[in-house]
């Protein structure tokens, strides 16, 4: 019963996402293949992973789990249903003081089980005018823990205009999701260098960065 409800809710969310954003995936750097990946994306709205999920081919969609903050997604039963049952999210506790499980271990276990992951290395939604917040170190530690998994940058464009923080009615606008070339942690690369390289690879996919 719960499964039927979850796949129905999933289909409804996909339909709504397409209706509002007519979202299109652009596979510039990689092709949509079965290869296991960590997709890392910019984060401006709660709909971000929905859009990535929407443009993934159906087969990959069910093998790809978003990584999300448990403080938000466990707050109400509706969010729990959407986060856990519909999207099968890997829920991590972002607060080191309260957490009982290490997020890197949780993510590594999901990768070991064969899933691909969607992560937002900025750690929180970007509500500033800057295109990208500085990355947290999680992406580096994850790359260190599972160095064989390809890291694919994903730029989500325009969704922040569809539903700015604090608004509850979305404005329909065309969105794109651009997948860049995969990168990997180089031998002996420092945390700082790696995160800077990952940030640059993601920013390079933004249409605004290309325009100026």
């Amino acid at each position, binding site marked *: 019963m719960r499964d039927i409800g979850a796949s129905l809710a999933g289909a409804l969310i996909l339909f709504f996402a397409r209706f509002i954003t007519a979202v299109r995936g652009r596979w510039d750097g990689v092709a949509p293949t079965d290869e296991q990946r960590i997709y890392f994306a910019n984060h401006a709205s709660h709909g971000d992973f929905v859009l990535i999920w929407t443009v993934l081919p159906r087969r990959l969609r069910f093998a790809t789990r978003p990584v999300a903050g448990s403080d938000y997604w466990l707050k109400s039963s509706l969010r729990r249903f959407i986060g856990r049952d519909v999207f099968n999210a890997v829920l991590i506790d972002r607060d080191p003081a309260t957490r009982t499980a290490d997020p890197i271990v949780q993510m590594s276990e999901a990768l070991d089980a064969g899933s691909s992951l969607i992560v937002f290395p900025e750690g929180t939604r970007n509500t500033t005018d800057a295109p990208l917040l500085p990355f947290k170190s999680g992406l580096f530690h994850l790359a260190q823990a599972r160095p064989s998994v390809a890291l694919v940058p994903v730029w989500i464009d325009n969704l922040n205009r569809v539903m*700015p923080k604090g608004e509850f009615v979305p404005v329909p606008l*065309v969105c794109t999701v651009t997948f860049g070339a995969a990168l990997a942690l180089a031998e002996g690369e420092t945390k700082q260098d790696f995160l800077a390289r990952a940030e640059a690879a993601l920013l390079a996919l933004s249409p605004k960065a290309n325009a100026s």
Partner: protein
Amino acid sequence: MTMPHPDLLAVLAGLLGVLIVASTIGYVLQRRLSPDGSNAVVENLNDRIRAWWIMIVLMGLALIGGKTGVTLLFGFCSFAALREFITLTDTRRADHWALAAGFFIVLPVQYYLIWIDWYGLYSIFIPVYAFLLMPIIASLRGDTEHFLVRIAEVQWALMICVFCISHVPALLSLDIPGFQGRNVLLIAFLVIVVQMSDVLQYVWGKLLGRTKIAPRLSPSKTVEGFVGGALSATLVGAALSWMTPFTPLQAAFLALAIVLMGFFGGLVMSAIKRDRGIKDWGHLIAGHGGFLDRLDSVVFSAPIFFHLVRYGWSTT
């Protein structure tokens, strides 16, 4: 639901025939010139033909569905067009309410007014009421940066994408003596003439095109293509007079008006695209770009065609 008029069925059967011929030609060209899918022109042609199938089947279903079908179809076209247009504007956070009102209040109300035939209100709802109310909503947020530009963009988006497009289904509300129950054929006439004009201009341009007509706006448009396309589309219009309340001469005149408005409408929309640094409005229709790329000539010709017919033939 009443039985569709035999003339409408004849038109749809004719379109089906044209599509089958086009698909056959596309298939042969593909086998001959692009067996491995490498000839971009042939692939684009086949993408376009496939998209035409979908557009004509949808259009045919809507026309058979009568007023409700046509109003819903063009309501959705307006929605998709507005979504593409607003995406390219410089609107800011402070315009959020005004934009949401445009999509979820102005658009449905306009199409509802069309559906209930309230000519007195649907012809001024956006130019008067939305024109005055939208800037009020935007000003309440207190953000004055680029204010005039932002409200002008929203106004233009609503006029083009909602007001103008809604004049296609509005053709159903005209009351032409001796033509009752056949108004959907006016829509078929308008859409066929506009789209044939686009196709024929493309064909004539490919065959004879030399002199660019507006190199800065639209490098593919040529004088030869324009003249050849306009004249042949006018002839197509005259040849379609049997399905309209017009004589062949009147049909040719109206077709010419449609073709001219459509052509210059296409130039205006190209100018906007150039200004924004894009080639297509969107990506929803394979081979054609976005909804607005396909609708730009309809946008400019529909209200003029509507008013010419209303003034000259309708009793309402």
